[in-house]
């Protein structure tokens, strides 16, 4: 049955109640970089973080490259031109030496977490989850360090990893998502503020789920998180990422980069619930989410599994991918993307089969409502050496109402005669008779929609760790409220 932590989570979720309640702004003094983007900005960020020379050089190289690049336009998303000079690229809560306990943390921050329904202290005690809470780019509390230390797991803010584990960072940073990869990844490489670093040593099964709560707070501050997770041979780690952001009128840019590396027989499970501010019902405001997430199954028999529940953001541009380099490696992508009102989501995955006997599985559930546009875009590519490679893809779209769009754009490429790829896609709506059946049995409309949509998404929800699954189910319902009838 449910652990106290799960019950706790359920209780919190229940309190989330009817509407998007994360719309508030915490008033904390910010330490800002000057507005705009230049070499000066990059140097300012690097200096603020007391980075070594090599890191600054890396950033500057990325910045120079970025200047020569163009914003990608191929996705089915439309938004006003972003003025990259009209934003702040660094904001950190002031006076922020590393804290040993929660008592040292700014009470206002803790209050923010409480409003979000994340009682950090209780959660640590009850759930056995180590929380590295990122508050506007800089980590303020790192917990459960000792337990992880015992296991030899490194779980720390990215800035700390640069200082304390430079060899690991140098060895892996930018090896999955190269500095030159794409416009937003390159931008991130130049100005990333902070993020999370995880290293799981050989043969270690990480003793707890690792979780980081991201939160965008400062007005007009782009968020450029950088995450690097390395699972050494025969290790296992499950990482949870959950996001909420305060309500804002200005559009906020978010361009994170996540790199995963799995060595021989290692497994990484990466789960995301993304519930950033989607804009209001007229399409005003909301987060622009341009994310590059990629995992490299570098070792034989390694496995990387992405699970995402995307309910928020005005614009989602996100393709968590797997490079299946090692023989017998496995890549998975489980996705729920909900777009309501004027939201636009263009999301999917790439499964690049390089090694022999590699397997991949893609399950995508897209739900469109209101005037939203929701696109699945995916690539399955089998290279010549990927003997006996296997892929199975299932893409289902659900439309709610006649003013939204659901689109499926799969690219299926094979260069090996022994490989097998299967792809299926369907489009449906919530049937009137399903709704009537629920209503007749006494279930109110919004709850009926939530029930039916959760049923539609079940295969993906099942992939989430328990704490997330409960929250995600609630979010599915909340994000579609009022969409029928």
């Amino acid at each position: 049955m449910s652990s106290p932590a799960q019950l706790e989570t359920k209780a919190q979720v229940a309190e989330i109640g009817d509407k998007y309640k994360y719309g508030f702004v915490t008033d904390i003094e910010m330490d800002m970089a000057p507005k705009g983007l230049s070499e000066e900005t990059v140097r300012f960020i690097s200096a603020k973080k007391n980075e070594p020379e090599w890191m600054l050089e890396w950033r500057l190289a990325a910045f120079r490259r970025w200047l020569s690049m163009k914003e990608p336009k191929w996705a089915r998303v439309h938004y006003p031109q972003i003025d990259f000079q009209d934003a702040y690229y660094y904001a950190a809560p002031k006076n922020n030496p590393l804290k040993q306990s929660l008592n040292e943390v700014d009470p206002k921050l803790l209050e923010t977490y409480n409003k979000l329904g994340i009682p950090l202290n209780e959660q640590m005690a009850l759930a056995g989850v180590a929380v590295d809470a990122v508050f506007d780019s800089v980590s303020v509390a790192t917990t459960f360090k000792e337990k992880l230390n015992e296991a030899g797991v490194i779980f720390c803010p990215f800035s700390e990893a640069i200082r304390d584990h430079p060899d690991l960072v140098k060895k892996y940073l930018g090896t999955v998502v190269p500095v030159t990869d794409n416009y937003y990844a390159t931008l991130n490489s130049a100005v990333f503020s902070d993020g999370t670093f995880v290293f799981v040593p050989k043969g270690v099964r990480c003793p707890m789920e690792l979780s980081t709560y991201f939160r965008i707070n400062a007005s007009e501050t782009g968020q450029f998180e950088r995450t690097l997770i390395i699972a050494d041979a025969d290790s296992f780690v499950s990482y949870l990422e959950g996001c909420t952001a305060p309500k804002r009128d200005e559009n906020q840019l978010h361009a994170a980069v996540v790199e995963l590396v799995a060595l021989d027989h290692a497994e990484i499970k990466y789960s995301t619930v993304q519930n950033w501010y989607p804009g209001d019902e007229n399409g005003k405001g909301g987060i622009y989410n341009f994310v590059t997430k990629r995992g490299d199954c570098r070792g034989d028999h390694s496995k990387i599994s992405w699970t995402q529940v995307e309910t928020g953001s005005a614009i989602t541009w996100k393709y968590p991918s797997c490079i299946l380099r090692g023989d017998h490696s496995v890549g998975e992508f489980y996705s729920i993307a909900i777009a309501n009102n004027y939201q636009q989501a263009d999301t999917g995955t790439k499964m690049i089969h390089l090694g022999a006997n590699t397997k991949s599985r893609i399950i995508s559930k897209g739900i469109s409502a209101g005037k939203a546009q929701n696109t699945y875009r995916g690539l399955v590519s089998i290279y010549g050496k990927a003997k006996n490679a296997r892929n199975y893809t299932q893409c289902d779209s659900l439309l709610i109402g006649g003013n939204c769009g659901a689109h499926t754009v799969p690219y299926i490429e094979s260069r090996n005669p022994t490989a097998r790829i299967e792809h299926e896609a369907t489009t449906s709506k919530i049937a009137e008779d399903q709704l009537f059946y629920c209503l007749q049995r006494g279930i109110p409309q919004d709850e009926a929609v939530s029930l039916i949509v959760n049923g539609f998404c079940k295969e993906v929800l099942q992939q989430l760790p328990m704490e997330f699954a409960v929250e995600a189910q609630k979010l599915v319902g909340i994000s579609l409220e009022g969409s029928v009838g």
Partner: protein
Amino acid sequence: MLDIKNLHVTVGGKEILKGLTLSIQPGQVHAIMGPNGSGKSTLSFVLAGRSGYDVTEGSIIYNGEDLKAMATEDRAAKGVFLAMQYPVEIPGVTTMTFLKTALNSQRRKRGESDLDAIGVLKLVRAKAKELNVSEEMLKRALNVGFSGGEKKRLEILQMSIFEPKLAILDETDSGLDIDALRLVAEGVNALRSPERAMLVITHYQRLLDYIVPDRIHVLAKGRIVAEGGKELALELEAKGYEHIVGQAA
């Protein structure tokens, strides 16, 4: 309990019920019989409150309240239950989850507290056993891949869990073999009580051998054309609808 007067209903602009009058007291079982297209299913959907079924004239009073004015789910909470001819499949939603959600939705509406997961489980298990609904069935997605008999048994199981005041059984016998029919009928009979009224809609007399009604109404072309006791069913069976309907016209 239920008082229908001069009910006119249109579906997609076409008038299906043309002045139907019917009254049922608590504890009674009434049967509606009639040929295909006579409006039997329309009557059941109107009582349950399905959208697209527009009442253009007449009244439906249920326990002193105007049923027309009530939302579908409110009718359910107030005890109106429709066992459907074609129970709907909802992929991904387990039967157990559905039962729990529906039961607690109704309870909340009535101002009662939620039953917790264990309470629901106990209740459902006890009732399921009586109706030969297996544990495995409860774990499967609602009605998905169920046989015709399983679907109908699940409808009756829901009826016994929700304990409605007015149960409408729409062609519950359709698609059932004789054993399944007997099982379903036994389930229904077990739920007969002085507080509960039932409206059994059927095309054939066969079901009424097992669920013996207090009164039978024959529906044709949107109107009640004949009424009588249980012997009317036998007459219908012997002479056919054409005879009775023709006589009335």
